[in-house]
């Protein structure tokens, strides 16, 4: 029965009748008591100032203010510089900023900044001075820090030495819950190096030079490496989603869609300043965080305009220059923030303002431009048409911030930037619309970055939509895929055309004009995978339920060249077409000898597994593995051989290949011997067992007095029974078979 007023007992009514003083509120008081210390959060202590007298003091304060105001707001009267008894300053000052964030910024950016030639500023938070410097916290006696004995670490590049001496490549496979690293054995079962259950929670990733294997966990990122696959580094970014390395493996960017929440008891790696941030940039060598960033707010769409589909999370948000010295982030429509490493301060303390900027990309290599003495890092960017101003593509040199080249374009609806792997060319794929905005066309504007003045060449006007573009790595040819139908979520994938382009033959070392080589129509292809060494390319149809072709092309076919191509620097030949049903990903090995294709359980659950092809498109292996998720070849660092040495090898290739072929033959024959030996053993074991069991059963039958062959005995008995009552019949069956039929016409 539910309690009603009638049923209420007196005790229930007197609930509030207790002594207020008896209540223990110490825990609540502790929690909510105003902490005086917090009031000092906006204060910093500036050390390392020159000694001044009372007269010189205002001058110093003024000078100091200039510095101090670069990171926050403070005023003359908020600087307190204590004076000693001798009328001279004590060489330090207290400064109050308008809020604690500015004080923190001051500590980060002004600490260790030289004031003049003799004086270097030391900036600390007042609360820190109090916390660490309070009496009793510091031992008066100096105790030298314990220096741990040097321990030799494992060689992180030991993977380059294949124990079999065949220069095989490694790869990682993530299937089910386990991650394994293997040597590629071509046709044979890959040789397992290490296999661990639950090595990662979401995915694995190699670092760009192959030194580390990255595993991703809810607690952060871990790097593994060395011959015993021990943990090398740990980066505690809670709920990390994505990871990106700088090109030379010096730094790491981690990203989580959840802002970092620093628990009260603190975090082993991150500090309070990182609270609420999404990105962390780490130094790999020390595994320390360098700086953290919050997600940029996507600008609200202007009124009246249809809300633009904001790119969910642009990744990589932080892009690295080729030499790891700079990292930059785009502030869409406004500027590009370039940070200098390792200090992670904004280059020249300000973001580079580029009105309307949509996208930018660093040159993937340090480009040696003609007529320039200092080779600087380059990035390209583009801005759309704003008002009556044309759209613009620019090349900027960092750190000088010079715009090396810029190009104005009209009627631009979109542009995509594609660098060639050595930074020699930049292709800007420009989608243009007609004045009525009804028809579309695409042009390819190619910047020849290495040549003097950076000439721009317009390659072709393409009526169809270009859905994919890829440069030949270290080369000067490219492939595009176009479609006439609008790209969208249609049930039937669009018919596409694959077009090849290459430069014309030119005198000397010059590269001629880019010309159209060939177009292959009525394809379904949607992806281009160049061999990392160039020359060979796989054009594939991936993540498609109807079609899954893999076309292997050679662009330097050593056969007859068609007359029409004789002025061009390519000879195209389709070498092979393979089919891998349900393929979702394709990857070349770093040596350009093999291609792995796989159907990942992340995308669909049909026939998950991998295929392995050689560069000619000959299938070597095929394995269906349930819950196959990921395959990744282990990258290799750049070769240490000089150009001449590489040339020498290429010249003597015939010699080398003779030796290798011999080795291969020997290996195969010895493997065959082992297999035969194993089979012989199996056969012997089987027949030994058969003999033993047959004998045993025969003995048992004898004991029971049963016939050796019960069925034969039964039939004999049955025949004996019927022997008397039936005449023997002979049934003859005559069969005719036509062996040959010939027809002759008799005249």
């Amino acid at each position, binding site marked *: 029965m539910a309690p009603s007023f009638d049923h209420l007992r007196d005790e229930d009514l007197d609930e509030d009748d207790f002594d207020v003083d008896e209540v223990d509120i110490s825990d609540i008081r502790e929690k909510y008591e105003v902490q005086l210390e917090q009031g000092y959060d906006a204060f910093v202590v500036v050390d390392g100032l020159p000694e001044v007298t009372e007269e010189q003091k205002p001058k110093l304060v003024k000078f100091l203010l200039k510095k101090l105001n670069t990171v926050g707001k403070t005023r003359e009267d908020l600087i307190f510089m204590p004076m000693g008894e001798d009328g001279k300053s004590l060489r330090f000052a207290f400064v109050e900023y308008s809020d604690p964030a500015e004080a923190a910024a001051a500590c980060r950016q002004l600490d260790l900044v030289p004031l003049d030639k003799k004086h270097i500023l030391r900036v600390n938070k007042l609360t820190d001075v109090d916390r660490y410097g309070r009496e009793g916290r510091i031992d008066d006696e100096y105790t030298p820090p314990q220096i741990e004995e040097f321990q030799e670490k494992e060689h992180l590049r030991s993977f380059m030495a294949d124990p079999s001496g065949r220069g095989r490549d490694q790869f990682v496979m993530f299937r089910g819950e386990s991650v394994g690293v293997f040597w590629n054995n071509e046709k044979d079962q890959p040789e397992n190096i290490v296999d661990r259950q639950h090595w990662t929670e979401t995915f694995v990733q190699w670092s760009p030079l192959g030194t580390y294997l990255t595993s991703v966990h809810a607690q952060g990122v871990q790097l593994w490496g060395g011959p015993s696959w021990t943990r090398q580094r740990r980066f505690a970014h809670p709920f990390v989603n994505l990871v990106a390395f700088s090109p030379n493996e010096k730094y790491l960017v981690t990203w989580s869609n959840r802002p970092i929440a620093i628990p009260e008891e603190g975090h082993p790696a991150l500090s309070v300043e990182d609270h609420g941030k999404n990105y962390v940039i780490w130094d790999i060598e020390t595994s320390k965080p360098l700086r953290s960033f919050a997600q940029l707010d996507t600008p609200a769409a202007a009124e009246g305009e249809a809300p633009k589909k904001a790119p969910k999370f642009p990744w990589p948000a932080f892009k690295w220059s080729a030499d790891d010295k700079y990292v930059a982030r785009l502030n869409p429509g406004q500027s590009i923030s370039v940070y200098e490493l390792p200090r992670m301060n904004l280059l020249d303390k300000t973001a580079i303002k580029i009105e309307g900027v949509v996208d930018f990309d660093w040159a993937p290599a340090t480009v040696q431009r003609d007529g320039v003495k200092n080779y600087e890092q380059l990035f390209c960017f583009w801005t759309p048409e704003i008002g009556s101003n044309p759209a613009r593509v620019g090349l900027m040199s960092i750190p000088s911030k010079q715009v090396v080249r810029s190009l104005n374009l009209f009627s631009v609806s979109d542009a995509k930037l594609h660098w060639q792997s050595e930074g020699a060319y930049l292709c800007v794929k420009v989608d243009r619309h007609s004045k009525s905005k009804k028809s579309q066309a695409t042009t390819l504007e190619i910047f020849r970055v290495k040549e003097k003045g950076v000439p721009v060449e317009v390659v072709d006007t393409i009526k169809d939509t270009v859905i994919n573009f890829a440069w030949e790595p270290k080369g000067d040819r490219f492939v595009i895929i176009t479609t006439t139908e609008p790209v969208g979520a249609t049930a039937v994938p669009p018919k596409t055309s694959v077009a090849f382009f290459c430069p014309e033959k030119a005198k000397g070392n010059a590269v001629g004009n880019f010309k159209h080589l060939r177009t292959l129509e009525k394809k379904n292809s949607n992806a281009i995978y160049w061999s990392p060494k160039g020359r060979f390319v796989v054009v594939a149809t991936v993540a498609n339920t109807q079609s899954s072709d893999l076309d292997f092309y050679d662009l330097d076919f050593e056969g007859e060249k068609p007359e029409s191509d004789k002025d061009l620097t390519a000879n195209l030949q389709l070498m092979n077409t393979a089919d891998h*049903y*349900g393929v979702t990903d394709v990857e070349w090995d770093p040596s350009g000898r093999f291609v792995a294709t796989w159907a990942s359980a992340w995308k669909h*659950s*049909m*026939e998950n597994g991998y295929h392995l092809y050689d560069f000619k498109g000959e299938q070597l292996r095929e394995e*269906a593995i349930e819950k196959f998720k990921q395959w990744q070849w282990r990258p290799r660092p750049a070769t240490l051989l000089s150009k001449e040495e590489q040339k020498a090898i290429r010249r003597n290739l015939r010699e080398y290949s003779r030796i290798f072929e011999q080795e291969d033959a020997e290996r195969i024959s010895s493997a065959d011997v082992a297999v*035969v030996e194993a*089979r*012989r053993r*199996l*056969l012997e074991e*089987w*027949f030994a*067992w058969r003999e033993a*069991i*047959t004998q045993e*059963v025969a003995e*048992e*039958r004898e004991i*029971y007095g*049963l016939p050796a062959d*019960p*069925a034969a*005995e*039964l*039939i004999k008995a*049955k025949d004996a029974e019927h022997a008397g009552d039936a005449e023997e019949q002979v049934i003859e069956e005559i069969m005719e078979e036509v062996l040959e039929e010939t027809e002759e016409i008799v005249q």
Partner: protein
Amino acid sequence: MRPILLSGHERALTQIKYNRDGDLLFSVSKDQQICVWFAHNGERLGTYHGHQGAIWTIDVDPTSTILASGSADNTIRLWEIKTGRLLKTWDFPTAVKRVEFSEDGSKLLGVTEKRMGHLGTIVVLDIKLDVDAEQSDEKVMTIVCEDSKPTVAGWSYLSKYIIAGHEDGSISQFDGKNGDLLYNIPIHELNQPITDLQWSHDRTYFITASKDKTSKLITAKDLEVLKTYPADTPLNSATITRKKDYVILGGGQAAMDVTTTSARQGKFEARFYHKIFESEIGRVRGHFGPLNTVAADPTGKSYASGGEDGYVRIHHFDKGYYDFMYEVERERQNKLNQQQQQQAATA
């Protein structure tokens, strides 16, 4: 190897069986028909009428006199092979999933389904191998399986053991005389039912097929796994060939699962493996539904497969099949031949 296509059934095949001489092939299907065919040309010899439900299983005695069948109409029936006459009907509370004669034909076991409060059981009946004799009504023995229901069962050599395969992937060994459980060993993956169990010619070892995509060769005496044959699809049936040391596996993605997997490849093929080396030798295509049952001719001349598509295909082996030999096998063969010659010479 040109197959003979037997299109006498209207629904999915459930079991096919050769007689001991390999000249007759019996087939049962869900369409309530029992058919008997000449194995050498695929001509239908006749049918046996009487069952009122899908027929799950069939067996023929060693003298090719009597036929036993088990059906979803909850009966085991005995038939005279020569005339098609119904000799005897035993009634059970649930469907009969498997019947098998002992090596001397004197006993018949039946596996009954677990349903409607009845546990799965293995019953043993005494059989008189005489078409005119009165068959006993009484069950000689009933083994009740409380843990996991039996799906298949069979008699070992000397009728010493009854071996049963279970729904949970385990294999049991029972005493053939009193029905005591001697061993129960998890052989296949947990809860992947065992779908078939067929004997070697002398019943000292047997082959299993399971939904866990593997087939295993196991000894009857100690339930020791001798060989494992991995496939890439759930298996419904497996058989051991005579004359050549091969095994044949049949299976394929079940029709009910086809929508969740690729329809392109149902993997409806009969797979040949080398019995001793466990390596796959070849595949035979043809069915357009999963293979429900495969059987090898006891004389080694042919094999047959029955599919979900309602067809039985008989394949007669050609010369290449008999000639194919691994190097080590040939070696052994030559050695044996030499020994024989020497013996003949000394004699």
